[in-house]
């Protein structure tokens, strides 16, 4: 298949209701179970190792009207929390058996329990992922939390999750992540051959299929994309930061490029490419995965890292991607992104890296003002 054909398939899949994606997979596997994962990181490996399908749970995007959830969550709460709850009220996630939330922020925390209260028929788990990155007991704790999730799956669904299966799952997700890293490296090298919306759509589609299918798509893209015919343009190479949870509308990503940027790095769907390198597969897989969370995670606004400054990871990203500037893109009301903005911005300023901020909401539909702002920013940089 050509990259265009794959991207078309991906676009089609991403546009489907989550419940329909789940039901279709289950139709071919009687008794199969599907578990949806709220951002940022959920160990998809565990879901897969239990023979279930992990799916990304990313809110309602532009398509779901709020009819119930806005009475539950106030106006000052981010959109993804509301629209995720709405998916439940409107039965759009019918067919999904389990939901996993974690301690990324206070909103997600409350959302998890409110989801459980309103939909008692499904399995809901809340993970407490470690915020302490250096204490001696952290990795053992992280492993215990993963074991707790595994035990939860076993009890709720009457299945068995063996260490051998988990090791295999880690292996296959290592392959997925390595391919995604390769795709990101390709975009850094030749951004003219892979637009951000294309990369985003492909990546998002890989969070809706079993890893084997994801690998097939990614391999075909890695094979076909270099042969695309596209000449590099005079554009500003930028890194997007802050869009790790609520999903920016595709229109906004398009506007960035139309306004003269090459997005060469970003934190979109960060949780699905969470580890900086392969997770070791020798020994106890729960411990390996727990240790990887502590020592091999990408920098993230939802995880405290005691070993480096908030801005260090971002600056490193800018350098690694040979970017010139950063576009902060926090979701409206997103507390972790908005707080980190301050420390990151100060770090960038110390390092002499220009930046701008564009807040978004998943339902944003006019981009003209943003386009103007970005164009002005780009012009000031390119013709300086």
């Amino acid at each position, binding site marked *: 298949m050509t990259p265009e054909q794959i991207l078309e398939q991906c676009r089609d899949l991403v546009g489907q209701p989550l419940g329909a994606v789940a039901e279709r997979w289950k139709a071919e596997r009687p008794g199969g179970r599907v578990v949806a994962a709220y951002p940022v990181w959920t160990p998809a490996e565990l879901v897969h190792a239990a023979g279930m399908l992990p799916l990304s749970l990313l809110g309602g995007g532009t398509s779901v009207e709020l009819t119930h959830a806005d009475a539950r969550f106030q106006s000052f709460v981010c959109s993804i929390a509301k629209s995720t709850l709405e998916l439940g009220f409107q039965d759009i996630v019918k067919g999904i058996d389990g939901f996993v939330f974690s301690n990324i922020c206070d909103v997600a925390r409350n959302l998890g329990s409110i989801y459980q209260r309103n939909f008692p028929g499904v399995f809901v788990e809340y993970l407490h992922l470690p915020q302490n990155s250096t204490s001696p007991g952290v990795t053992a704790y992280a492993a215990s*939390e993963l074991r707790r999730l595994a035990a939860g799956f076993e009890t709720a669904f009457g299945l068995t999750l063996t260490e051998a299966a988990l090791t295999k799952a880690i292996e296959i997700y290592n392959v997925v992540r390595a391919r995604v890293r390769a795709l990101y490296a390709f975009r850094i090298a030749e951004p003219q051959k892979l637009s951000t919306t294309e990369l985003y759509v492909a990546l998002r589609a890989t969070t809706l299929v079993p890893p084997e299918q994801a690998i097939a798509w990614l391999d075909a893209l890695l094979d076909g994309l270099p042969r695309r015919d596209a000449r590099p343009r005079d554009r500003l190479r930028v890194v997007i930061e802050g869009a790790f949870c609520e999903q920016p509308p595709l229109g906004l990503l398009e506007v960035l490029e139309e306004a003269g940027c090459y997005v060469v790095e970003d934190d979109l769907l960060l949780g699905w490419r969470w580890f900086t390198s392969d997770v070791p597969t020798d020994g106890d897989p729960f411990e390996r995965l727990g240790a990887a969370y502590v020592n091999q995670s990408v920098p993230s606004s939802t995880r405290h890292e005691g070993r480096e400054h908030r801005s260090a990871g971002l600056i490193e990203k800018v350098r690694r991607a040979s970017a010139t500037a950063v576009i902060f893109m926090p979701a409206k009301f997103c507390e972790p992104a908005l707080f980190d903005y301050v420390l990151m911005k100060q770090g960038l300023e110390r390092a002499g890296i220009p930046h701008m901020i564009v807040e978004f909401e998943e339902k944003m539909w006019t981009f003209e003002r943003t386009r103007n702002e970005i164009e002005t920013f780009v012009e000031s940089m390119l013709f300086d």
Partner: protein
Amino acid sequence: MATPVTERQYQGKVHEHSRRLMSAWMGELARAEAEGRTTGALMISGNCVELLRACHVLPMFPEVTALQNAIRHKSLPLILKAEQAGYSSDNCAYVKADMGLFLEGGMGPGKPMPFPNLIVCNYVGCNVYVKWFEHLADISGAKLFMLDVPFARTPEPTAADVQYVVGQLEELIALCEGFTGHTFDIDELREVLAHAARAEDGYARCKDLCKSHPAPFDAYFDSINMMGPINVLRGTREAADFFDVAVAEFAGLVGQGLGPLSEERFRTVVEGPPPYPYYKNFRNLFSKWGAVAVQSTYSTVGGIWEWGFRHDPARPLESIAEQMLRENLTNRSITARYQQIRRYVDEWKADALVIHSIKSCRLFSAGQGDMRDYFTRELGVPTLLVESDLEDPRYYAEAQLRNRIDAFFEALEHKKVVAAGTH
């Protein structure tokens, strides 16, 4: 409406005593730098102040500084200063007021509020705590210790949870020893915990007295007098003694049939923090209706003592860990809070629930619409939801609040009259 309700204008010993104790603590803080004492910043919720005390680290609480600035109407310029520096108008204003204080030159070496030597982030539920203390560490250069407390997500804390927290507490002890040069003595901690348990007992007894009709004090607005001693000074003999005085005073009021108002017409449970910049105004909106809070959730952010948990000198680190993990409001889920409130409504015989939704604080607020749905639809408890902020005066719209509150109590009064008529 019948005879107008008035406040008794009786502050009593509790208020004065609390003020004295808190001023003494702030005096110590102000002198700490000059006296070369080690200071440690902590958060209020589910804190481990006893441990710092036993380690000879003087605790400081940025949340207390922030709320005091709000009460003194000084928070807005600080918030604006922080917003100029890049903080979003949508971020928790407590943090902004604290960072604004630094930017305004009110915090730092030689300033009225010193930098802490050590920053202990007791991450007990609130994710903003992590951010706040990262920022405080950034400006002060002080050592940040992230005390990660797993959220209450199982019926009881797991063995791994307790082990993880105890391990971090041991690490913290070693860290404090390095700072102070003082060798940790477990017996000293046991002594501190015994004082803490006595204060916890006293606080629980005070709140229990609010089951009386009328309640002797307002468990929302007046609890603030007790929240300093219980959350900040817990573990001192003075705080424990304070609660003996408080219990005696409130028991005396119960004996005389006196409450904070001339008449207690409505008994409410209040959920959510108060609007500190307009504390008195907000209170008046309820007082005029004779509405007295007989219980509140905000008064349990530091610890829930009314169900019987006490620090245990016989199991020092374990009981500190258990308190942080489970026995406080912030580390419990919002739906666990529904059950806490439900018990309050039942056992304290409340007529209504008042939810004060705080823009700054999503830990408390995100999803309170669902809470309202649960209480009104599933339990049939009259529930009022109003919105403002605990620190940012811009979100306090008095006319709007008054309308909502008046309409609610009018309806409640009408219901009472009808109910009385049918009996």
